[in-house]
């Protein structure tokens, strides 16, 4: 059981490493979106500090949605997806492996670059720490929920936008608690409650999302 999880994880990571193009593109999308806001809103630090959590979080959400569209499409086109449906292992486990690989390759770079971008917004050390923790807890949920949308919209014209439309309402709680945690620490309320909720959503997503995505994949790959 675990052997197959590791195999697929290793396969997707090596594939992603060998074609770095869309990795880098995804990271730069995040950087560009975050860096544009100060140009749009103005340089004084007080407002920037206020909007920083929301901006970083919305950019993270958009970046992961953008990257998710390709998660099943490549396998669908070259036929490996069919073979995944025909393995003696539960499909949900394979999807978990693919989402884990996808998160490691796209989600983690966002988390690593976020503090650097946070400096643009003059975030305090403590706020940066909480920002990283919320992103670490939140981006996997975004990938998991996005995987359901990607499975549903597999092979459809305009799949990317449709995927974002389907999945956006479902990711709102993650966005609210993610950005909220950083803001709460800034205002001294303490963001610990938010982090628990983010953790709860992550656990729920870890269990339900692969099952839903598996059902959706069986239908889309028909």
């Amino acid at each position, binding site marked *: 059981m675990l052997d197959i999880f590791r195999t697929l994880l290793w396969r997707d990571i090596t594939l992603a490493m060998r074609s770095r193009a869309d990795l880098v593109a995804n990271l730069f999308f995040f950087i560009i979106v975050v860096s544009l806001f100060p140009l749009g809103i103005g340089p004084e630090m007080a407002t920037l500090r206020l909007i920083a959590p929301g901006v970083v979080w919305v950019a993270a959400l958009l970046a992961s949605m953008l990257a998710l569209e390709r998660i099943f499409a490549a396998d669908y086109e070259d036929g490996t997806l069919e073979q995944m449906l025909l393995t003696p292992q539960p499909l949900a486990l394979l999807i978990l492996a693919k989402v884990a690989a996808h998160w490691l390759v796209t989600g983690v770079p966002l988390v690593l670059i976020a503090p650097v971008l946070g400096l643009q917004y003059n975030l305090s050390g403590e706020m940066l720490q909480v920002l990283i923790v919320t992103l670490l807890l939140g981006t996997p949920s975004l990938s998991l929920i996005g995987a*359901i949308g990607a499975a*549903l*919209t597999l092979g*459809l*014209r*305009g799949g990317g936008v*449709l995927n974002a*439309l*389907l999945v*956006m*309402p*479902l990711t*709102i*709680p993650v966005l*609210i*608690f993610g950005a*909220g945690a950083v803001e*709460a620490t800034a205002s001294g309320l303490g963001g610990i409650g938010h982090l628990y*909720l983010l953790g709860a*959503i992550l656990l729920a997503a870890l269990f*339900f999302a692969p099952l*839903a995505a598996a*059902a*959706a994949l069986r*239908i*889309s790959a*028909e």
Partner: protein
Amino acid sequence: MNSRLINWFKLSSPATFYPFAGRMVPWFSWIAIILLVIALYLSFFVAPTDYKQGEGYRIIFIHVPVAWMSMFIYVIMAGWAAVGLVYNTRLSAMMSEALAPTGAMFAFLSLWTGALWGKPMWGTWWVWDARLTSSLILLFLYIGFIALKSAIEDPRRADRAGAILLLVGVINIPIIYFSVRWWNTLHQGATIKMSGQTSMDETMLIAMLIMTFAVWAYTIAVVLLRVRTIILERERDTTWVRTLLQEGNRR
């Protein structure tokens, strides 16, 4: 098996459901019209003027029933989706598809009436109140469902994909509602309450309930009418539809 179970199962086949729905539509239409008239009469002529908001508060008599209805229809759609996935009956997916536009309309209406009610009270068309925001998100869920269904050509895949989206969506509704309400109270505090402060006078409650039943009857009538069209299109190659059409041609 007792007879009730048998005819319930028989009813689930489009061929028997089509005439049944046809008979129900006029009934529910009349019920809807009558209840609507009563509710309107109560809302305008019986319910007293509110001491603080004057006549403006009467919008509540449609805002609340419509908001309930938009949420309730989504849950019913998810119910039909579950039945469709478990029993693999084609009719249930058609019901979800027929309910979607009406649900989306009510979600939009609850936003529209909410905004028109908010303007005189707080001076702005849009207020990030927990309920209004949740209605907005619910509208996105409806639009997502309709967009997914229309993006897929093969009806079978569209039905099952739509059903999964509905089930995933309905599990998320409480979470979304909780997080939005929680987010709202954190930022603005509980100062702005949508409908709480007008004490619920006896006649107001009755007017609202009757309006809700009227909207319910309306929904059933419109949805049954729409589902008949969907059944015709989906089953156009079956013998019963073709005989039906031939009778139409001969007349």
